[in-house]
């Protein structure tokens, strides 16, 4: 969508965002380091607890719960954020974006390219941001309808269940190979990386840890699979609520040519949506519940997002830029409706499924 602000207003908006970023950068220090180390410690405790509880068959549900929580924390608050370079300034090799390899079948190296670069640079630009529908779903009216999309809700369900596999396959751009815009040979190097990572993850969760519990092998294997499933479902839902509920906008390539910094910030706000909730919810979502703040400042430590959110919101309101947020159940319902509605071709008059207040900028 085209900005409703003048170039001058966009520039002022960008300057305010830059100033906010500078203030946080200047303030980074011990608290941020202590926080991420504490999260890692808690995550390791949960993991050790979960793995240990598999030796007590009656505690199986508890074991799955602890391991699921550990995997969620690791993927979201630790892995995702560390790989964004949020903690590179600490100089700790263990928390460095260059070396961290997360607990996910998608190799870090490939994920950093498709996520940090492609998705975060071209956020919600149709045809460029491959996170829109992951190349599987129709998530925007401007994606041309095809009978294939009748299966939209089913594909979404499958993507949710097998989310980490979807993320790993994401980089192969299978849909572009089907379309003929990408050659199969281009995937050769990626295949090797994915297979290496898949083997590592599968050996760990489906061979080694189950084997260590001896006769309980099948129970442990099922428990590990369940934990991976819980993590997949959670991650999918948090991530889909971040960009696709009503209110989140998409953009065309033409609109974003020669984009200014202010315009870039503007697009990041409009292309993202927050989820409201309590502190524990924010931690478990890797603070991606503050998707707007994350997209404005992807390299700031995520624990800062809740702190700066009121100010970001205030600035957006002053410029009349919609700041989309809502509780999880509402955002989830909104996303689910969109997935179902877009399975069908556009109706003659497309109504947004919720009234969106259009705010105009104040007179300059």
């Amino acid at each position, binding site marked *: 969508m085209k900005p409703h602000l003048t170039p001058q207003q966009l520039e002022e908006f960008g300057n305010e965002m830059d100033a906010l970023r500078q203030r946080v950068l200047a303030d980074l220090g011990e608290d941020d380091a202590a926080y991420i180390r504490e999260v890692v410690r808690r995550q390791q405790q949960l993991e050790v607890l979960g793995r240990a509880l598999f030796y007590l068959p009656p505690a199986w549900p508890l074991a799955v719960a602890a391991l699921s929580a550990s995997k969620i924390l690791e993927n979201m608050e630790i892995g995702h954020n560390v790989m964004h370079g949020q903690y590179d300034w600490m100089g700790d090799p263990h928390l460095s974006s260059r070396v961290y390899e997360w607990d996910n079948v998608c190799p870090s190296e490939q994920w950093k390219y498709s996520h940090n670069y492609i998705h975060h*640079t071209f956020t919600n630009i149709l045809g460029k941001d491959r996170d829109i529908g992951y190349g599987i779903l129709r998530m925007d009216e401007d994606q041309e309808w095809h009978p294939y999309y009748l299966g939209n809700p089913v594909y979404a369900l499958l993507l949710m269940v097998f989310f980490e596999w979807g993320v790993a396959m994401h980089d192969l751009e299978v849909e572009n190979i089907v379309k003929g815009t990408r050659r199969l040979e281009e995937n050769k190097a990626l295949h090797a990386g994915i297979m290496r990572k898949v083997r590592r993850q599968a050996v760990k969760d489906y061979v080694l840890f189950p084997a260590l519990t001896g006769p309980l092998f099948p129970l442990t294997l099922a428990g590990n699979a369940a934990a991976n499933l819980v993590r997949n479902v959670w991650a999918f839902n948090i991530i889909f609520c971040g960009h696709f509920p009503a209110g989140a906008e998409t953009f065309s390539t033409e609109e974003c040519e020669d984009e200014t910094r202010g315009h870039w910030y503007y697009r990041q706000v409009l292309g993202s949506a927050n989820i409201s909730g309590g502190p524990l919810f924010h931690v478990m979502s890797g603070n991606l519940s503050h998707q707007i703040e994350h997209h404005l400042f992807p390299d700031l430590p995520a624990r800062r997002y809740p702190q700066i959110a009121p100010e970001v919101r205030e600035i957006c309101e002053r410029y009349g830029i919609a700041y989309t947020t809502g509780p999880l159940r509402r955002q989830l319902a909104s996303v689910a409706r969109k997935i179902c509605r877009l399975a069908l071709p556009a109706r003659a008059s497309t109504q947004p499924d919720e009234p969106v207040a259009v705010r105009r900028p104040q007179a300059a």
Partner: protein
Amino acid sequence: MALVSRITRSRTAAALASPHGVDHYLSRINPMWAAHEVRARVVGVRRETDTPGAPVATLTLQPTATWRGHRAGQYVQVGLDLPGSARRMTRCFSISSPASGAGEEITLTIRSHADGQVSKYLVDAQPGQVLHLSQAQGDFTLPVSPATPGIDPLLFITGGSGITPAMSMLRTLLRDGYDGRAGRPVTFLHHARSAADQIYADELARIAADDNDVTVHLRHGDAVFNELELRRLVPGHRDTDTWACGPAGMIDLVRAAYADSPRLRLELFKPPSTGTDTAEGDLVFSGSGEQVTNSGASILEQAEAAGLSPVFGCRMGICFSCTTRKAEGTVRNVLSGTESSVPDEDIQICVSAPVGDCVVDL
């Protein structure tokens, strides 16, 4: 022990401990347990000199069993989590003790610099503290073993703290049975700012007095080793295997005295770079050997202009695709305007511009 270390270093252990790694768990139990990383406990601290503002101390370090040993003349990267600071500082120091074997103690001799947070902290280190170490690195080494000595004389020329790698070599020779009967004279030349600044004064006096065919010449104050003096002290110095290490000014004199002689091996101290806003100095791409005059543009742009093709993504500082190791020099983040002079740090080359001389691994 061998079995434990084989287990902790196995791929199985790595898979079980992923994504954090075996070392992360081991160090939580005992900071001196490691499967891959090297850490070291400070077991002794000895003051060498007490010059106000620049005291020197020798730290004796007991490394973890993962330490693979070092050759005389090599250096090690020391990583330090300063109390009250979230940033881990990493600095390089030459090892001053004789060549070590796996897991053996080493010593570092460190001069405290007024604005050097790490060196200041280390000179006052307390026994028991644990430091992060790299394995030994560097080619400024003594290639021949005293067990099979050559017949060529050896010459060491050092200044200030540059004495440490040469001292490691000299101590290695003497420890391993080198003596005058080898028929291979060793000359040890060292320049210190003053007698009070002389590191290892007693030990050097003892070595000089012993009958071992080692000649020691110490100079203090303005009396630096120039070509004239070198020629007088070591006739035919250009044809003598020489190791020189010290501050830039001294190295310039030595270089001039040797013309292009291949017998001279140099190790330079990293010169402190000064931050200015104007583009000056040279940008060196150490991986490719290219060097350009700093134009003030981002390192990525300057690398591309020099014909290199570094990996990049967003070109706006958000995606970290272009993160590259900066070996030395100062860079300015063009987004925040902040300057950073930390050696061996990872920088985003798309939003970093060199300030003065700069070396990046491209």
